[in-house]
């Protein structure tokens, strides 16, 4: 950083001194002094000091009990609980978005009955808090002791005890999925209506079968609008699974509570849960980045490089700079 500022060589005329036109031929030889942003420097220092304080506090405050954290974070119980959290997230995402897609196309269909039913479903399931709904499903047997198959309003051929059919885990999954479906439906519908109408006309003019139009032409383009919001929803769902602790299912948050209920180490165990949620969310965020990139095919003339490609290019530049003192390719450029 130039503390010493080299201005024009001694003897040269100052640029706009006097009535004479400045000689622009000389300008190229002059050294450029960049503007100094003192405010930026001050703000950066303040923020860095605060961050250092916070980090220092985290490390040195004995109440965090990092030893306890270390002994639990990879323990079998916790890892199993994380597995259950992931299972709940994966199944509820799959079921929720499948049902949501069906509901979205019901709302978009020209059939008024389908439209109304889908609208009513979304209205109801967006209106009930997830925890209330979960407890409802948990107590399904109080509502219907037995569930059966048969003719509507007619005889029943086969029936089963409701509790043994769905169980706690089933109730949790149904609750999460049905809740998720209502939101997924609106996200998918938003994506579909964002696709240019001309695309459907072109597909129709070419005689492409209806289902294929949706699968091959509409959905891939709708995905561009669906993915950012869907990423939000899946991450929300991952964290939302912690709500099923009310049903005593051994997912991450429930298990953490059980352990700190036993040993009283509340803070380090909450940190265990936090660390896992942050880790899983980070993995999902990275996955989202790459999925979005894939569906952006054709949207940009030159797709921007991935962070990995950027890092590789940066490393290659460093290496070649070490050898020849010259960069091979610009770090940020196109393909």
């Amino acid at each position, binding site marked *: 950083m130039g503390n010493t500022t080299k201005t024009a060589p001694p003897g040269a005329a100052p640029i706009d001194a006097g009535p004479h036109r400045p000689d622009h031929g000389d300008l190229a030889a002059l050294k450029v002094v960049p503007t100094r942003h003192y405010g930026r420097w001050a703000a950066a220092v303040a923020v860095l000091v605060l961050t250092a304080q916070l980090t220092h506090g985290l490390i040195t405050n004995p109440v965090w009990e990092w030893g306890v954290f270390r002994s639990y974070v990879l323990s079998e119980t916790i890892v199993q609980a994380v597995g259950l959290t992931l299972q709940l997230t994966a199944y509820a995402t799959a079921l929720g978005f499948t049902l949501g897609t069906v509901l979205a196309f019901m709302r978009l269909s020209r059939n008024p009955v389908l439209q109304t039913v889908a609208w009513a479903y979304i209205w109801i399931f967006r209106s009930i808090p997830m925890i209330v709904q979960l407890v409802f499903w948990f107590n399904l047997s109080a509502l219907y002791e037995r569930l059966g198959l048969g003719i509507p309003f007619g005889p029943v051929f086969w029936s089963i005890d409701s509790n043994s059919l769905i169980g706690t885990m089933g109730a949790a999954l149904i609750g999460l999925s049905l809740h998720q479906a209502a939101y997924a439906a609106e996200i998918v519908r938003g994506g579909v209506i964002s696709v240019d109408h*001309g695309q459907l006309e072109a597909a129709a003019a070419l*005689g*492409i079968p209806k289902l294929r139009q949706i699968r091959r032409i509409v959905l891939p*383009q709708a995905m561009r609008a669906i993915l950012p919001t869907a990423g939000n929803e899946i991450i929300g769902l991952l964290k939302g699974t912690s709500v099923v602790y009310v049903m005593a299912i051994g997912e991450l948050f429930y298990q953490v509570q059980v352990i700190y209920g036993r040993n009283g180490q509340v803070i380090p165990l909450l940190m265990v849960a936090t660390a896992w949620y942050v880790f899983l969310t980070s993995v999902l965020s990275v996955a989202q980045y790459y999925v979005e990139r894939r569906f952006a095919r054709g949207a940009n*003339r030159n797709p921007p490089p991935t962070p990995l490609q950027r890092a590789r290019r940066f490393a290659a530049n460093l290496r070649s700079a070490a050898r020849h003192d010259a960069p091979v390719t610009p770090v940020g450029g196109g393909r």
Partner: protein
Amino acid sequence: MSGVMVDVRGVHKGFGPLKVLRGVDLQVRTGEVTVILGPSGSGKSTLLRAINHLEKVNRGWISIDGELIGYRRSGDKLYELREKDILRQRTHIGFVFQNFNLFPHLTALENIVEAPISALRRPRKAAVVAAERLLERVGLADKAGAYPRQLSGGQQQRVAIARALALEPKVLLFDEPTSALDPELVGEVLDVIKDLTRTGTTMIIVTHEVSFAREVADTVVFLDGGVVVEQGPPASVLDAPQHERTRAFLSKVL
């Protein structure tokens, strides 16, 4: 004398209170090129879109190669066709849009093979070979792997023409194919269409390019106010129009 390929009889079409077509009659013979001219709002595009049933007409009927479009006749009743059958009918009608409407997430080649594979159930390999030949014909053999946004407007429209040709349609409909293009790109698209006129494909072209109409049309149709005002060979309609409205329009665009 060749037979009638496209037969439009007494077609009316309105959007709410707005009456766009008020009884259009039009016969296009097999292998002929018909150019439709007319001021904007005269119903040219609506007529074209009615021919491949993108718009359902309110009255009248349209047939292609003797087959009613959108309906099936049984005795003294017309039954609306199911969507599936309408889609099958459309595979005989190529349509080129003003805004190209290429599928932006598919490459040029994938845009072209999509309909032959999914609608005509052609094997992929054969469809790809045919598509490559079509790309060559429109002068874009080297652009098979390019996405539409990587192509210029003129190139996109040429891919769109190849896509329409891939179904080997009985009729090709062009809806103002050069209106969305920069002036210097119009020529390359018109050249491709001109080239097609030599192959004896039946075509209906809606355009504002009067000199192009003069060059390629067997019949020029002047549409105004939702009716055919005048039609005939270019020499008579363009050079010696009988009707006042035709003369007024031509004086504005020429």
